[in-house]
């Protein structure tokens, strides 16, 4: 009896899953990667204000999933784009929901980009050593706007056709490259098959590839510089509250994603996508206007000071261009290390003025639409 070999209890034997994980870990360093991703310290602890980046990633993944499902049915030709979109809405099971989710998802993406940029700006998180993250973030903002602009044409109804026409005309006013860009996008004197093909390729191939590359770079730079943390509180308080990324920040991120998912679904139920008549070169009584997030600019161009060729250039190109250039130069102009927004009155007032102006002109455009109707 005393010579019988000791038998290990069954629980000490690795299971098949553990063996597989060990196999992969040995080759790719899975555990090290996991530790690096989840054990990132969050200075001052987790916060709801930090969820926007993860939420944006989630929205992009959902847009990609719904977009791929829609591509199973959508035909990107001027003859069939409208009919295939109607087919998705009326004949494909849950097609209306997929399309409406994709449509409202793009709106959610723009809202979250604005929220994320506002949070970074107000928290002073663009300041050294995070200038590169801010710059890549601005490029990502441009890509999100590009997604909205190119995706809007694809249903090929009157709204899509005329919003694109207005957008391309605005682009045409850019000095030097404007004419080339407008001609390249349209592919002819008026929007047609070439326009649709080009917008489709940009929407489903070029922009997703650019977004994936830049989002990866954005995350890499964020990891390299580390989170900025709160702008208020003593060093003792921040140190006492510092926590790892997992589990609390991950939990908040998941809640943020759930809220966004539920909000998009609720909007899809409340206002499912309904197409207007098929695109034609005659607007009839339809008043062409761009997507809601470009409405403020559209309304701005209706003001008398922006009338005429030069005024239109000033309002459509020079002002937004100068604003974007200012945003890009911001980390290099604002060298003050102070991050507390309540001690940066110019930044706070500037942010309020921009937000109120966008809100005011967007609402004015809606009232103006009623006036025109």
């Amino acid at each position, binding site marked *: 009896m005393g010579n019988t070999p000791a038998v290990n209890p069954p629980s000490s034997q690795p299971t098949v899953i553990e063996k597989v994980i060990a196999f992969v870990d040995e080759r790719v360093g899975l555990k090290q990667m996991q530790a690096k991703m989840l054990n990132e310290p969050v200075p001052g602890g987790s916060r*709801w204000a930090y969820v926007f980046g993860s939420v944006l990633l989630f929205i992009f993944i959902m847009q990609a999933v719904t977009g791929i499902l829609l591509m199973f049915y959508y035909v990107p030709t001027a003859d069939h784009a409208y009919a295939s979109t109607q087919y998705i*809405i*009326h004949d494909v*099971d*849950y097609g*209306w*929901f997929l399309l409406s989710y994709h449509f409202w998802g793009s709106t959610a993406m723009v809202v979250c980009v604005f929220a994320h940029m506002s949070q970074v700006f107000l928290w002073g998180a663009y300041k050294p050593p995070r200038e590169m993250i801010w710059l890549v973030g601005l490029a990502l903002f441009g890509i999100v706007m590009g997604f909205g602009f190119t995706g809007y044409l694809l249903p090929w*109804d*009157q*709204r899509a056709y005329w919003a694109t026409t207005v957008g391309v005309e605005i682009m045409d006013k850019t000095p030097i490259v404007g004419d080339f860009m407008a001609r390249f996008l349209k592919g002819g004197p008026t929007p047609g098959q070439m326009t649709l093909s080009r917008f489709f390729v940009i929407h489903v191939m070029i922009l997703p590839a650019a977004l994936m590359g830049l989002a990866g770079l954005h995350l890499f730079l964020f990891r390299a510089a580390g989170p900025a943390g709160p702008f208020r509180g003593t060093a*003792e*308080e921040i140190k*006492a*509250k510092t926590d790892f990324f997992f589990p609390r920040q991950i939990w908040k991120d998941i*809640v943020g994603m*759930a*809220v966004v998912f*539920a*909000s998009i*679904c*609720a*909007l899809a*139920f*409340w*206002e*499912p996508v*309904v197409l*207007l*008549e*098929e695109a*034609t*070169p*005659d*607007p*009839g*009584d*339809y008043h062409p206007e761009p997507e809601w997030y470009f409405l403020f600019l559209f*309304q701005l161009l*209706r*003001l*008398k000071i922006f009338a005429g060729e030069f005024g239109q250039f000033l309002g459509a190109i020079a002002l937004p261009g100068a604003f974007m250039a200012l945003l890009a130069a911001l980390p290099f102009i604002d060298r003050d290390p102070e991050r507390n927004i309540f001690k940066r009155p110019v930044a706070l007032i500037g942010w309020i003025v921009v937000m109120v102006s966008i809100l*005011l*002109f967007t*609402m*004015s455009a809606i*009232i*103006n639409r009623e*006036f025109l109707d």
Partner: protein
Amino acid sequence: MSDERDSLSPTKIGLGVLWPAFWTALPIKLAFALVFLAMDMMHFEGRLGLGFLMFLASPVTVFATPIITMGLESHIGEGAGIALLFLLCIPIDIWALGVVGRTYFLEKFRKEPPDGLGVTLWWKCAVVGAVFLPLLWFIVGTVTSTSISMAHSLFEMELFKGIPVAERISAELSLWGGVSVTVLIVLLLIGVSLIGRMIRSTSETARPVADSYQHVVTRWDLMRVPADQGLMLTALTLGGVVLSMLFWAGLPVTTPHPHECCKKPEVKAEPPFKPLESLNKDEKLIAQLEGQIDALEKQKAEAEKDKDKGKGKKAASAPEAPAPKKP
């Protein structure tokens, strides 16, 4: 530190509890709202955002919404889901206010949270909301409609007649929007401050905490971690699976039609323009009109010929007419 705690304004206290409690309860409420929407149990009117806010901002709206709906004749929608969601919001809010309230008492007041804090805060918030929100609704509504008409009549004056439409719309909106937003913000701050006062009065009877700051942080941190994490995770997963199944079971296969109560104005575009058809039609019309004009001209020419013939005969028989005298 003690001075800072004593000097906490009621508005700060109110915001410090209500804002995180709102976000804590929101995901659970939204999940139920989504299932009810998918199952066609809730229909909102045009003001979806407002309707949603009414639910999600409970507990302050739990009694206030029925009062506003009945007393001030403001209708947000129809369906059994609306009442059911309001009932479901009660335990969710009690839990969220309890979690947030306990943390707040430890962190900001450095006081031991009393037993049943969630229930206490819930009913107090509900009562304050029931009195204050209908008042806010009425005042903001009246101020908005008055300022809209005043702004409109101001721009009807002769002095401002020449202002272009786009400028006029923005200026009018700035005027009435500025007034109503200011009134709304002031009233909201007063409401939040009332709730803050009520929370502070609840804290006055609580025992002070003697632990160090680090220990207090650990305590409120652990308060948010469930005692049995496995059970919590299983319950959450099961809840998620059940809600997902209900969602997909209830989701309409084809586009849902809006409920009778909440029909939106139909968006109509002009009939499509078909250039060839239009051109042919116009050409036909032009040809037809040309024919008519030719016929009329012929008729006129014949009539003039007949007239000339008649005149010629008359002229041959009658004497020459005298020239008219100049005045």
